[in-house]
């Protein structure tokens, strides 16, 4: 299944500057691991030392948070968009 992942601005520097990456994967976990394989420095920003998704990084399939779907086991359909949305604090004093 070819799926598009959108990379947030804050993490693009670890993904060769790319805003989106298209990968083949059947579920969210496989997709994210495929992404990290292509861009290894993204790894520590997405996953903690325990191998789980970090709690300040949310992943959405379409407009739904995977925490309210099946987590990393959430299945993917061809053409779907997966978004990585990290916490950003900026407001600029």
């Amino acid at each position, binding site marked *: 299944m070819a799926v598009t992942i959108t990379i*947030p*601005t*804050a993490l693009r*520097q*670890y993904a060769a500057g790319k*805003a989106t990456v298209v990968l083949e994967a059947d579920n969210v976990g496989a997709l994210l691991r495929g992404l990290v394989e292509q861009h290894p*420095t993204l790894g*520590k*920003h997405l996953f903690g030392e325990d191998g789980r998704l*970090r*709690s*300040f990084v*949310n992943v*959405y399939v379409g*407009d*739904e*948070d995977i925490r*309210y779907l099946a987590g990393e086991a959430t299945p993917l359909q061809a053409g779907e968009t997966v*978004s990585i*949305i*990290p*916490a*950003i*604090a*900026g*407001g*600029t*004093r």
Partner: protein
Amino acid sequence: MSNIALSNEEIRRYSRHLIMPEVGMAGQRRLKQGSVLLIGSGGLGSPLALYLAAAGVGHIGLVDFDVVDESNLQRQIVHGTATVGKPKTASAQARMHDLNPFVEVTTYETQITSANALELLQPYDVIIDGTDNFPTRYLTNDASVLLGKPNVYGSIFRFEGQATVFSPKDGGPCYRCLYPEPPPPGLVPSCAEGGVLGVLPGVIGTIQATEAIKLITGIGETLVGRLMLYDALAMRFRELKLRRNPACPVCGDHPTVTTLIDYDQFCGIFPESSTLGSQDAITPVELAALLQSDERPYLLDVRNPYEVEIATIPGTDKLIPVDQLQERLNELDTALEMVVYCRSGVRSGRAVELLKSAGFRKLKNLTGGILRWSSDVDASVPRY
């Protein structure tokens, strides 16, 4: 609630609101009776302060402890060249009073803390988070939830912004439902490192102002339960669904956070978090002398290439952005005496810690970075 009167002058001023049935006299009276606390008078706070004052929100509180700096004016449009060096609260208050003398503006020239937050928020109907750091965002969230007040959230980074309304009492989530824990310091670049497109806070702050006005007047459909994402480069808006987490420690069914906590500690920020001591530091004046001597150290810049175009220290030997350092250690020689620098000394401090743990020993961090090099050694190097 809406029996408060509008004077003839106010009726003339607000006529474009009054002739819309969705606002009308009733909505304008609600605005006049309404109150908003604006936490932060910077990038997001600027359009918020201006539009909320212009709209006639009766009482607006401003919390900020900073002073106006020249580098703020690229985006902080409530301030001006004439108020550089003045407190942001007073600067914004003067501009708001000029825009609309019918609104009352209360200033709090202080940092919001766990000790004063509940007292600061208590008198206001709507809280607006226009801050720039994780500890204050979690503090603002928790205080708003504990007091049962809606928290209008906005956040920006470079070309990208987020906005929503956190209001568990209306069935929506809070900030902690979305992000239970903050990123550890250093893992996500801060705004000062990341930069921001000047008009971006204008877009996100104006969305926040719109939501505040809707909350006060009770019209329309608010962003409760929806996260609005804006990408200025692609010029694209998207929205994601947000849900309240029943297990949330603050707004969940069995809350465990029932009073305000230490948010610096929660966010992993400790006063002495660095393992570096004075033996690891060198001042710009000391470095300048060394560069003239026979013991010239190897000079490593850990900033980004586009920063080098703005300013650099003459004689720099190598550029490796701090984020690439781990992968490019083999390009450096452990035997060399090395001085590491960045813009302000923060990133180079991280770089020195990383290099030390990789076995480098002859290292110094340039205190205050290129900013202090400019002020102490060579004023022709621009400060940015």
